[in-house]
């Protein structure tokens, strides 16, 4: 006979933290950290899928770019998760909750062309950039300077990835006859 494990803390419960941020600060900050955490998880899975399924003449460079991006996003999710846990929150892990919190609609399960993949990634990065700017403003307004600093570090990297994705999508080529 199996028994249900004893729940020590529910997902919505924020426990005290050791760095002197009161609940009036930790509750909104933890909510925002979970939005960013879920969005990074969604972006990680999308880059990973694209890394695995991409094919075609430009395969290798795009395959490598997807790999670098997914590793960067994974490291960022780790930093956000550490901060969220430190402040007394719980990083979401159920797929339904992650989908509810993610700031963009991930690409479907089908395989699409390289350009459509990159367009989906650009939309996701743009949504993430928007979310990070809003959450950095929130962290600043409640006096949580370290979380604001963390968000701004992530923001710089997310904007760099968006630039790179956008450059892949540029209508230019050294190959004669292709559109400029």
């Amino acid at each position, binding site marked *: 006979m199996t028994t249900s494990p004893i729940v020590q803390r529910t997902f919505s419960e924020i426990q005290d933290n050791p760095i002197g941020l009161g609940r009036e600060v930790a*509750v*909104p900050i933890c909510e*925002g950290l979970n*939005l960013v955490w879920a969005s990074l998880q969604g972006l990680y899975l999308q880059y990973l899928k694209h890394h695995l399924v991409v094919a075609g003449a430009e395969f290798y460079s795009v395959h490598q770019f997807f790999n670098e991006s997914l590793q960067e996003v994974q490291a960022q999710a780790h930093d956000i998760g550490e901060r969220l846990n430190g402040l007394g929150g719980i990083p979401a892990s159920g797929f339904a909750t992650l989908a509810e919190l993610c700031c963009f609609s991930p690409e479907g399960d089908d395989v699409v062309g390289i350009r459509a993949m990159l367009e989906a990634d650009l939309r996701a990065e743009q949504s993430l950039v928007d979310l990070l700017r809003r959450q950095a403003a*929130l962290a600043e307004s*409640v006096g949580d300077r370290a979380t604001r600093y963390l968000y701004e570090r992530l923001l710089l990297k997310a904007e760099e990835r968006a630039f790179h994705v956008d450059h892949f999508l540029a209508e230019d080529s050294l190959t004669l006859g292709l559109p400029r």
Partner: protein
Amino acid sequence: MSPTLCPQPETAHLLQVPRCDRWRILYRLQELGLICGCAPTEHLWVMIRTPAEALLVHSVLRPFTLNRSGLVNWLDHCWSLQPYDPCPCLEP
């Protein structure tokens, strides 16, 4: 208990706002003296008791719910408004 986390009164209005913005909206409503609050992972609620409070809530929500072009259109509209005269019949 912080007013931010206090339970929602039965007569409060629930506001449907973007989840990532609800705390900043809450703080602005609090600055304006409105009774409002959020519960973790739930909605934003506010007490609206007078037309003036309804107008305040509307004006706070507008920047968070309109996109940039919507805000530009609204600003252009404001520039073209005529000055308000509460008693036009008293003019000579």
